[in-house]
């Protein structure tokens, strides 16, 4: 089938290109001169045009302006074209001599300025429908708006600008991706990222499920969406299911359509833009100094055991100047955070050239991005290039070739096996501060090496290591090459009625990850495998996508009355990925960082692995749009999908959709309200689907163990066969309103939606362990994702010299579970484990609520630990002895001691247990959104401010918990200096207690209202208008700007960053682990063209 599609496309190409060999009939000669100077023009293109403007033959004039052209038929026309001159077309009419005078074009071709009001046409790659006729919920940002957003990636540009589109950075490190959510998540499994469509073809941004990045978290994997922002013409977001249904099983998370810039008819225009940014990490939570830490730990130990910490065996706390080595190395006050911080720098250059004539147009760009992250050892280098070519063979045959290439090198910090993260900052936060950064020798001399002991009281690698040594000497380099050539041929089968459009896109994406863990960072002895460990993984992906469209637009007479478009589209996708991974350890030197060097390959973690996966899908789309009287529009579509990831029973899925639009403003009765330019109501309903991320799940896969037993290999079933796996289906309904008033100076869009996910795909559904498996994949359950969005754009003031624009968007989104599978555990978390919050699944209630204890401070004295009855009277036992407060009587039965955290005994039974758990908050923001004015003065100075907000939600401040829990050897924040230390101390900070007690149970102590308003960015830009200084510099345009980001946040939240996202899943709540506020960044940029 694939071969058929390809050969068919090729055949068509061939016929179009070759099919017209004919015998030349006669020769036309002549001379071309300039009309005013009468000088001969050399290099003028003289071409013979057929009736449908196809070039049949062509030549150019010589230095004397002479030409000779053998023409096929005298019925054709001759076209004379030359850059900066107006083209001339004349009939041949059997003449043999045609002389021509060309006139210079009076004015240069004006730059195309897209106004961004209503008229933009999102390129869906399917039916071409202008924005005003769209029946679905779609939001578009176009070039003029994008120009103001100076961002290194598309995701950053979109952040906060579109209602219902939520974008958050995975981390502040260069090259770490962003997560894009369109209308929240409607799925519990796999990726919730939207489908990205670039110039009409889906562009894969999801990491294949089976790739192991040398134990890297895939979320933070380098930006896959690496279209340079300067190349983007428009971005549209398809939000409702009727729109996404056209993309079938891939569109359930929403669709992001990106159109890149194309050449326009003009002389060559060279553009250059620059962007330089400086970012710093604001100071984080203050941590204990070495001396403060050294008094905390022995106290914590003694509170646990009643015995002093033995400093003879734990010399880290001995502080004996006689023991020179330990004294010097463990009596410091090291600021580990400062040791790994650096100022982030970024510079971004884009060169572009565009132009073209009638027949051929081009846009080409080359961009370089260099970034240095705020953590030592992180950075990014990216070179991307793009060539978009359009060639019109004739009015009826056109082809396009787009080639995009990206080369990316991302430097990340080493991913350790403790938490599968490159969490050097996390390690620096908990590192003991009395330890020295550099090592002292036993004579007390400071050595020029980092101090990386093989172990100390905090443990050994990977539990602990010297973060500075790790940041500097270990590395983790990701190198990516991606090239995506797209070939497209459009052919008008019946003029004005039947079009065909064929595209084939090749996507070659190669990634190589190289990492190295030096002995200097782990400190472990040379016999172990965490020393000089070199790893490499490589992945080669190859994807071919084809799309064949037939578009039928019958002429039904009066265009204003009936307008019908029909589309049939046939799409295929064939993906194959190959990967291998190798890891060795104990290379001879830290300079030998590649696994090709001799090394050890001994236990299971050091291995050579390979993998191969393939998946295919097909889709057939039928879609039709009918417009009657420009007022009543209806769109009906159906898509059939087949996917190789399902077993034969459930391989195909059908996704219908219907949507309508009623343009009220076109009705007669609205004529009395002339200030309304556009008022439309829309309603839509559609299905879209989702396939699992992994291949071959419907088989029980038998895999080989990495290990052997008695030198013999063995196999094991990796999973049970998921025979009932099928498409997860999102049934979305949307009603919307578009209003434009006062000459489009006021625009309002409103949407209400409900996306009901049925056959919900659980990728990790727990099943009874007695089955031999812990979790399975299963389709079951119903979840609703519902909410509303409002988007407002206004131009309240507009004169020639001053224009004030104002944009505002606000949205609310909720997930409500309606049905769950039978094995589904309807609660999560326990009330008896420290740090855990209880969450219950309540069918038909929004998810995101959490429950816990009420924190009432600290028991100051023994008397206070006596249990109180309802009236607040101390309870005495029958023997007259006081009854002390206990934890979880009779199971755990821990007796609270003075200095312990005091929780509210809600039921006054003298025992703190799950019956004392109360509702603490909900992580669903009531509203999210953004707003900001932009002021343009004299068309050249522009001030753009942007604020974003989230209101009405509670977050759990994990950072506060982790920096004040005082339960292990981790460093803590200076807040613990006010801890309870002796009977009678009155404080809100419990005593230090090593690995025991219940001082940090999930309670309202860590729950805070995280509503905030953030001054997200401010941009001041100046555009030099024509006629000013730039003319003398030969520029046609120059724009300079300065942007500052993350200035200030108004919030009552005490954590570092109130912008906390909910974790995934039914039990997800907002937990804030961030110990550093978002980086503050200043950017300078300029863009110009010649």
């Amino acid at each position, binding site marked *: 089938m694939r071969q058929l*599609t390809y050969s068919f496309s090729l055949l*068509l190409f061939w016929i179009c290109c070759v*099919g017209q060999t004919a015998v030349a009939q006669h020769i036309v000669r002549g001379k071309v001169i300039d009309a005013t100077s009468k000088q001969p023009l050399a290099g003028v293109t003289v071409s013979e045009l057929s009736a*449908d403007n*196809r070039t049949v033959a062509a030549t150019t004039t010589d230095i004397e302006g002479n030409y000779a052209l053998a023409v096929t038929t005298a019925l054709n026309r001759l076209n004379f074209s030359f850059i900066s001159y107006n083209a001339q077309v004349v009939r041949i009419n059997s003449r043999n001599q045609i002389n021509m005078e060309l006139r210079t074009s009076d004015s240069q071709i004006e730059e195309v300025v897209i106004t961004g009001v209503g008229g933009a046409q999102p390129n869906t790659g399917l039916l071409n429908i202008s924005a005003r006729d769209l029946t679905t919920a779609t939001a578009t940002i176009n070039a003029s708006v994008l120009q103001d957003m100076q961002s290194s990636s598309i995701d950053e540009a979109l952040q906060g600008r579109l209602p219902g589109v939520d974008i958050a950075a995975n981390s502040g490190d260069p090259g770490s991706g962003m997560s894009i959510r369109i209308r929240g998540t409607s799925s519990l499994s796999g990726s919730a990222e939207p489908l990205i469509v670039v110039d009409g073809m889906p562009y894969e941004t999801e990491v294949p499920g089976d790739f192991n990045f040398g134990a890297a978290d895939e979320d933070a994997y380098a930006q896959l969406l690496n279209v340079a922002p300067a190349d983007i013409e428009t971005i549209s977001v398809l939000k409702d299911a009727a729109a996404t249904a056209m993309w079938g099983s891939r569109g359930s998370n929403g669709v992001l359509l990106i159109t890149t810039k194309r050449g326009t008819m003009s002389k060559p225009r060279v553009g250059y833009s620059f962007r330089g940014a400086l970012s710093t990490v604001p100071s984080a939570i203050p941590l204990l100094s070495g001396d403060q830490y050294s008094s905390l730990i022995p106290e914590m130990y003694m509170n646990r*055991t009643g015995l002093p910490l033995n400093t003879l065996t734990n010399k880290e706390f001995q502080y004996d100047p006689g023991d020179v080595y330990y004294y010097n190395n463990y009596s410091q006050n090291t600021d580990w955070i400062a040791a790994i911080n650096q100022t982030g720098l970024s510079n971004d250059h884009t060169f572009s050239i565009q132009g073209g004539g009638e027949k051929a147009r081009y846009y080409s760009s080359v961009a370089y991005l260099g970034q240095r992250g705020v953590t030592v050892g992180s950075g990014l280098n990216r070179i991307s290039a793009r060539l978009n070519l359009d060639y019109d063979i004739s009015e*009826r045959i056109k082809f396009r070739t787009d080639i995009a290439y990206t080369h990316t090198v991302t430097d990340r910090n080493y991913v350790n096996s403790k938490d599968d993260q490159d969490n050097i900052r996390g390690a620096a936060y908990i590192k003991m501060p009395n330890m020295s950064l550099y090592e002292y020798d036993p004579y007390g001399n400071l050595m020029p090496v980092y101090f990386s002991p093989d172990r100390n009281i905090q443990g050994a690698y990977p539990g602990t290591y010297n973060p500075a040594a790790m940041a500097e000497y270990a590395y983790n380099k990701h190198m990516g090459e991606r090239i995506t050539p797209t070939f497209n041929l459009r052919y008008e089968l019946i003029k004005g009625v039947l079009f*065909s459009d064929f595209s084939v896109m090749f996507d070659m994406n190669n990634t190589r990850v190289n990492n190295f863990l030096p002995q200097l960072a782990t400190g472990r002895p040379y016999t172990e*495998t965490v020393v000089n460990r070199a790893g490499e993984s490589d992945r080669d992906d190859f994807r071919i996508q084809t799309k*064949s469209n*037939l578009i039928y637009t019958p002429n039904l007479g009066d265009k204003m009355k009936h307008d019908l478009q029909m589309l049939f589209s*046939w799409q295929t996708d064939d993906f194959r990925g190959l990967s291998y991974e190798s890891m060795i350890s104990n290379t001879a030197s830290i300079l030998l960082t590649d696994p090709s060097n001799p090394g050890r390959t001994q*236990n*299971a973690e050091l291995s050579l692995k*390979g*993998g*191969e996966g393939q998946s*295919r899908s*097909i889709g*057939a789309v039928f879609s039709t749009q009918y417009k009657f009287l420009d007022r009543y529009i209806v769109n009906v579509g159906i898509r059939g999908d*087949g996917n*190789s990831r399902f077993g*034969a029973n459930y*391989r195909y899925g059908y996704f219908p959709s219907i949507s309508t639009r009623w343009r009220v403003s076109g009705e007669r009765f609205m004529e009395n309200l002339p200030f309304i330019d556009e008022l439309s109501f829309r309603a839509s309903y559609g299905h879209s689907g989702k396939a699992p991320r992994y291949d*071959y799940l419907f*088989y*029980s*896969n*038998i895999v*080989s*163990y990495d*290990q*052997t*037993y*008695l030198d*013999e*290999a*063995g*196999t094991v079933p990796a999973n*049970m*066969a*998921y*025979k009932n*796996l099928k498409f997860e289906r999102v049934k979305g309904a949307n009603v919307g309103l578009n209003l434009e008033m006062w000459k489009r100076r006021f625009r309002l869009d409103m949407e209400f939606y409900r996306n009901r996910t049925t056959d919900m795909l659980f990728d990790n559904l*727990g*099943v*009874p*362990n*007695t*089955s*031999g*498996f812990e979790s*399975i994949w299963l389709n079951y359950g119903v979840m609703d994702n519902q909410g509303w969005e409002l988007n407002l754009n206004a131009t309240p003031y507009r004169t020639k010299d001053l224009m004030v624009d104002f944009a505002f968007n606000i949205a609310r989104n909720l997930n409500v579970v309606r049905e769950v599978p039978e*094995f589904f*555990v*309807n609660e999560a978390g326990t009330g008896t484990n420290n740090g855990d919050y209880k969450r219950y699944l309540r069918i038909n209630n929004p998810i995101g609520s959490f429950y816990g204890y009420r924190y009432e401070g600290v028991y100051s004295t023994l008397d206070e630990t006596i249990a109180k009855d309802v009236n607040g009277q101390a309870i005495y036992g029958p023997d007259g002895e006081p009854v002390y407060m206990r934890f979880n009587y009779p*199971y*755990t039965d821990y007796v609270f001691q003075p200095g312990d955290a005091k929780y509210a005994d809600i039921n006054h039974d003298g025992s703190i247990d799950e019956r004392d758990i109360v509702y603490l908050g909900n992580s669903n923001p009531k509203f999210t959104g953004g707003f900001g004015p932009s002021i343009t003065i004299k068309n050249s100075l522009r001030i753009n401010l942007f604020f974003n907000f989230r209101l009405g939600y509670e977050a759990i401040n994990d950072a506060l918990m982790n920096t004040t829990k005082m339960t292990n050897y981790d460093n803590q924040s200076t807040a613990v200096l006010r801890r309870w230390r002796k009977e009678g101390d009155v404080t809100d900070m419990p005593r230090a207690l090593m*690995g*025991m007690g219940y001082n940090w149970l999930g309670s309202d102590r860590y729950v805070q209202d995280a509503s905030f308003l953030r001054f997200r960015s401010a941009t001041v830009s100046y555009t030099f208008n024509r006629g000013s200084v730039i003319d003398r510099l030969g520029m046609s345009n120059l724009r300079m700007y300065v942007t500052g980001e993350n200035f200030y946040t108004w919030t009552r939240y005490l954590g570092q960053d109130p912008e906390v996202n909910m974790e995934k899943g039914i039990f997800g709540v907002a937990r804030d682990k961030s110990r550093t506020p978002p980086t503050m960044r200043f950017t300078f940029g300029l863009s110009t063209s010649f």
Partner: protein
Amino acid sequence: MMNILSKKLAIPALAFALLSLGSCSKWLDLKPQEGVVAEDYWQTKEQVRAAVNGLYISLITSSLTQELFMHGEIRTDMVDISTFAPQPYTEYRFADMLSTNSFSNWGTFYRIINYCNNVIDNAPGVKELDPTFTQADLDAYVGEALAIRAWMYLNLARIWGDVPIKLTYTASDEDLVAIAKSPQSNVLDAVVADLIRAEPMVRETFGSTAADKGKITRYTVNALLADTYLWQDEFQKAADACDEIIDAEIFELVSGDASTWLSELFGQGNSIEGIFELQYDRQQLNPFYALFRQNAIYTAGQNVYEVLFQFDAADPENFDVRGDRGALSTATNMIYKYHGLNRTQTKSLEESYTHWMVYRYADVLLMKAEALNGLNRGQEALDLIYTIRERGNAMQGTDLNPGADDQQGITTFIVEERAREFAYEGKRWFDVLRNARRNNYERIDLITGMIVSYAPADRQQSMLGKYRDVNSHYLPIYYIEMQRSGGVLEQNPFYGN
């Protein structure tokens, strides 16, 4: 010209698109290129062999031995836990076990059971497809799977008491069921049934020492049977099962020479004494180096050296070889057995692949002693105990010297001797429990006495109170498992709810 061409083309284009729908199914039918799917597996005897070998690999790659150590030792006087131990360890050790404690999860055992069920269900079909696959080979493979399954159920029965029994393979999502608990006695019956079935099937030898020690042989099955019979108080059967091993005359105790005892039995492994040892190797290290040595979670119990093993203050050359630098290192209070190479040298992390001893000949002798004592053949039992004591050079002070008719005295003696002989081999708690529970908990003093010896003063009474409730001797069912069972499982009454 183009017009005509285009019209001619439009029809085939549509036709192609429609026709190709038919061939889609084939195009979409993809199978993994690496690995095999179950439908294509179970064709040859080599595949059966690989699947059986996979069972052994699952024993050493899972957390099984770590869990067996924990369940066998953490509730006893043999160990202490350090301040590096996270809270769940503390709660388990000091009888604060709750159903929310993740150590009450039995997933590891059932996962291995399911792998065994896979072999037991699917291997017999291979014989029809592969004519070179002999019945004897098939029997041997199925027998190994049966024995491993029986061993897992024996563990479940003595750790959780009443547990669900699942004897069929979960092949697909259509086989998922929640299963109710069976009483402990039924579980033990099922274990015996599997073992009796396996006994004539499994091999007596695999032709190499390592395989004979590392895989299930007939003697392993006999040892498992003896063990299970002791839990059922079937003393005669237990003694007979032991005799099967003793009479084969291929096992004997290694020498008690202090310079070689540890290195032969553990440092090197696969000694003449070993019956079933899980064969860790350079590729798969055992988990104990980290547990006992690097920021050790477990250390030797306070009284192990001075009370249990004892020492000769007059003659430093006279010592129990199993004590200092045998099972533990008194200098550092470290558990020594799994990373000691011999009395003087220890292993490095990279060499830390000392085998996990499931059964060894000394165990068979002491199991037989326990069976004989149950049969009131006290003198024979004592003879066996003294054989073990002499080999280990047990200290005079530890000889309880019970009379041949003092059944209770001999029981106490056996339990203590087993503590010395099998220190840190994951047996202590089970030995105490097995002997305590006989005759309606006639010897609950074995448990309470042990608790008193290690419980911290402030917890002693509450711990004793809990241990007096015999339900507390078995773990709760993990709360998540309870919830996933959809109400089919019943919690151990001691843990409420």
